[in-house]
């Protein structure tokens, strides 16, 4: 009885040997993490509002594979960005570089802000100047007449 039980148990174990280990999500999780971090910085040109990391477009999958291979070959993130920019232009970068063609993009908001602040100060200064106009004697008298007794005016 005991032997039969052991035999059955061993047979069950043998069956388990047929099963295989689940394939890892990526061969090298660390590499995969670097690949995804880089792909998240890059625009997918097929579906332009998605990054290469997010997109399921075929091209994005191919580019992820390219990035994976290049990282595995020991290329740096900078090398891979240069590789993609050479093919697809600065447009692939979600953080465009600061250069002549992107000057308006980088400085535009700052210029608008400064212009807004200058306009605001200008207006406020003018309003203050307008408020500080002194009344002439005649105007004072007329104001007092309109508002009531001179005493009340003085109390204000």
């Amino acid at each position: 009885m005991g032997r039969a039980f052991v035999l059955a148990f061993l047979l069950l174990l043998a069956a388990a040997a047929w099963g295989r280990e689940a394939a890892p999500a990526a061969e090298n999780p660390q590499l995969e993490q670097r690949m995804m971090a880089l792909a998240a910085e890059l625009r997918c040109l097929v579906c332009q509002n998605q990054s290469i990391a997010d997109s399921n477009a075929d091209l994005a999958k191919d580019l992820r594979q390219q990035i994976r291979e290049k990282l595995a070959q020991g290329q740096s993130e900078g090398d891979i960005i240069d590789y993609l920019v050479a093919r697809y232009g600065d447009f692939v970068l979600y953080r465009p570089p600061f250069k002549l063609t992107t000057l308006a993009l980088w400085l535009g908001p700052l210029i608008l802000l400064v212009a807004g602040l200058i306009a605001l100060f200008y207006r406020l200064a003018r309003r203050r100047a307008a408020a500080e106009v002194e009344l002439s004697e005649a105007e004072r008298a007329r104001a007092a007449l309109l508002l009531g007794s001179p005493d009340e005016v003085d109390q204000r």
Partner: protein
Amino acid sequence: MNAGTLSVTRYLVPLGVFAALVVLLGIGLKLDPRAVPSPLIDKPAPHFELPQLHDPGKTFSEKEMVGKVWLLNVWASWCVTCREEHPVLTDLAKSGIAPLYGLNYKDRRQDALAWLKGLGDPYQLSVSDIDGRVAIDYGVYGVPETYVIDKRGVIRYKRIGPVTPEIVQQKIIPLVTELSRG
């Protein structure tokens, strides 16, 4: 500062800003966000050596075309727009202005051959880019795409999307004529 000029600027300035915004947004609406300027213009055409579609035993490389102005069209049998573009390419090939070569992008060989058989083959020959590697080197992101490559092997023009009769007349023919002369 009198009241007259004050009220005029009070209304004119916001109106001017509004009009400028309308013009700006109007231009923005007309722009095609997919038309991304290619950094490959005026750069040497990236090297490839790929098996020919009709005869996979043989390869074809862009180097064989040095000394000629030629057109490279990226196409696929699964690409709906390519079907739309096909008659334009057929006419372009017939005009004999420049040899047209095909880069068959991420296609199955039998599908590609059947497509050419059914619609006609405007290409001198096509090469198979099964995994799309060469297309990535050429910055392809939307099939069809068409390149004009000059005698020195430099990319001079790139069309993303279908070639239309207008583009053939206004861009490709003048450019090819000019490049062939030089």
